[in-house]
């Protein structure tokens, strides 16, 4: 990766469009998250880790592909921080930089069942593919 941690941190902040320093570390996002148990780095860490420039750790995190984008954390955050946006911005960095898809098209047929709506496939590609 060509960019250093500080540049990445700045890029992520510009992608989300708010100041993650508004976070007061109350943990409401993690408390509210329906996928918390599946995550290695919990949502409330994202704001401070982005501020501190600990992006490499975030890039490796399982959390990026466990977030449901349900916006519950965005809705309930008392400080107008939007954790889901931070997670998505980091995920975008991974997808854009690696060029690799978390979900490869070859793997899709095995995951389909006749009832699965189109929307789920589209969404998964958007979230995980380049």
């Amino acid at each position, binding site marked *: 990766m060509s960019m250093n941690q500080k540049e990445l941190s700045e890029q992520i902040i510009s992608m989300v469009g708010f100041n993650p320093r*508004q976070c007061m570390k109350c943990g409401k996002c993690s408390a509210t998250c329906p996928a918390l148990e599946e995550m290695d780095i919990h949502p409330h860490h994202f704001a401070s880790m982005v501020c501190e420039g600990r992006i490499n750790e975030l890039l490796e995190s399982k959390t990026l592909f466990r977030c449901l984008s349900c916006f519950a954390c965005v809705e309930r955050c008392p*400080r107008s921080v939007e954790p889901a946006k931070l997670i998505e911005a980091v995920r975008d960095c991974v997808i854009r930089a690696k060029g690799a898809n978390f979900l490869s098209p070859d793997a899709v047929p095995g995951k389909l069942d006749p009832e699965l709506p189109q929307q789920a496939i589209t969404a998964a590609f958007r979230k995980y593919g380049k």
Partner: protein
Amino acid sequence: MQRIGVFVCWCGSNIAATVDVAKVVESVKGEPGVCFAQDYQYMCSEAGQQLIINAIHEHKLTGIVVCSCSPRMHEATFRKTAEKAGINPYMVEIANIREHCSWIHKDKDEATEKAVILARAAIAKVNLNAPLQPGESAVTKRALIIGGGIAGIQSALDIADAGYKVDIVERSATIGGKMAQLDKTFPTLDCAACILTPKMVEAAQHPNITLYTYSEVESVKGFVGNFDVKIKKKARFVDENKCTGCAVCTTKCPSRKGGNEFNCNLDNRGAVYIPFAQAVPNVAVIDSTRCLHFKTGKCGLCEKVCSAGAIKFDQQDEIIEEKYGAIVVATGFQISDVTKFDEFQYTKHPDVITSLELERIMNAAGPTKGTLLRMSNKEHPKDIVFVQCVGSRDNTARGKCYCSKICCMYTAKHAMLIREKYPDVNVHVFYIDVRTPGKNFDEFYRRAVEQYNVDYIKGMVGKVYENENGRLTVQAVDLLADRRIMLETDMVVLAAAIEPSSGVKDIASMLTASIDTNNFLTEAHPKLRPVESPTAGVFLSGVCQGPKDIPETVSQAGAAAVKVVGLLAKDKLVTNPCTATPNELMCNGCSSCERVCPYGAIDYVEKEVNDHGKREVRRLARVNSALCQGCGACTVACPSGAMDLKGFSNRQIMAEVDAICK
């Protein structure tokens, strides 16, 4: 033409070392109006002042310029000197050649040149000075307190004890406010009623205090020392003088469907009611929106059972007009709306309550007679969860950006009281930070943790929901362990943010007192004038100014009282003579000045003017010099240049600009 004397001070070597004072004296001698100039080592000394007095007499001076230190230092001194010599104190101007010159410049020529220019500017200004007379206004020796909670009661008692008349206006049917609803108080755990009710009675019986309960301030006119206030005394439909407070009517009233506000609507009250047993005045009131007599014309049971004949269905609202010298705002607070935070299921589940509701549940006079019960099934709880910062420190649309300050302490209090009385109940507190600055406060909180085994968990609650066991599940996170917590509990208590009482905006606009973005009243200075509002004669007491607990409220109430007493002790108020004044011939009555005045000091009159022989009635701006503080906003806003400021007139400042840019 003025006869001006210029006095150049050496200030020892402070000025003289950098500024050639003799050269300054020589340079100003030719200035217009100057008929005397002299330098001296210490102009502010006894001898220096005498030198000025002698010169005034000898040279028949009408104005003087002192080139010395900052006017913030010695302007008052030299004004007194001038007065002693028999000239108007406002004929003195100071050229600041110390702080603004000798102390910051090193080059003597440069500093001397600047000192001369500053002296010239002051001379130019004093040439245009006019004698000013500070106005005087009388002081009505009576104070008004708006709000009858602990803040209002304490202020009233302190003012009354100092010998002045005080009226308390309280919009509910009794004084006592929020403190009357509390069970115990931190950090000593004494009973709120035990310490409050004696004060309520004292206020009611004090010969200098008049209570207007069930009353509201309608309008406020006037200014410091002379407020004209209209108070609306709402109809109680009960004769206050006849009612004995026997409460028979309240038990017989058949209309019992509506909630009892004093118990946070956890139980019901009759349409005729006394808010609580120790209410002051202990007089019933009929809620006409619920009373069957008012709704259907029938019933009238209360009238039948009242042996004193106090029920008066035909009672009308009454307007009382009174004059006051000072007003104390003590309107207090209310609990903010927690229904917007329905992830906690407050609107859906009766076992999710606010802390104030818990106070009533814990109180022996409350809906459960002081027994801790789940409101859903009236069973004894096994677990109880407290959630801190519900709506506090929240900068989104549904919250308040400030810390409500009292929640950490009252939650520790609740936790301890519950553990003390019911050792079998597990108490969990979800917090973001525990904030306990205050005497014996942190010790109090630590006692909850160490001696009462209260389970403090750092982290917020995300969601509360009813589970299949008929209990509540609290979905949260333990931030220190960085793990999910799913806690089963019987009750959830929300520490809701506090906010200024509804209606405080109306009160503030009536008083032209300013409020901040959170509707708290603004103090005149955050550090040095914390109990005064920027509007003269209006003082602040209690939570209306910002979140605070009972000890702080009582201290502030006392402080506000002292300020009021200090004001009422004066027979006359001296007003600042540097006030705005309109030129009647130039004023076109456009209201621009009125709109920018922060003190409401400008109004308009229809007045006949003689405009170069043409007589006509015009709408003219009028400045109330007792209210005007002399900021000058209106002088610049005035499109016709009619408004000017005494002491800092357009011509005076222009003359200074001219002198400096010569």
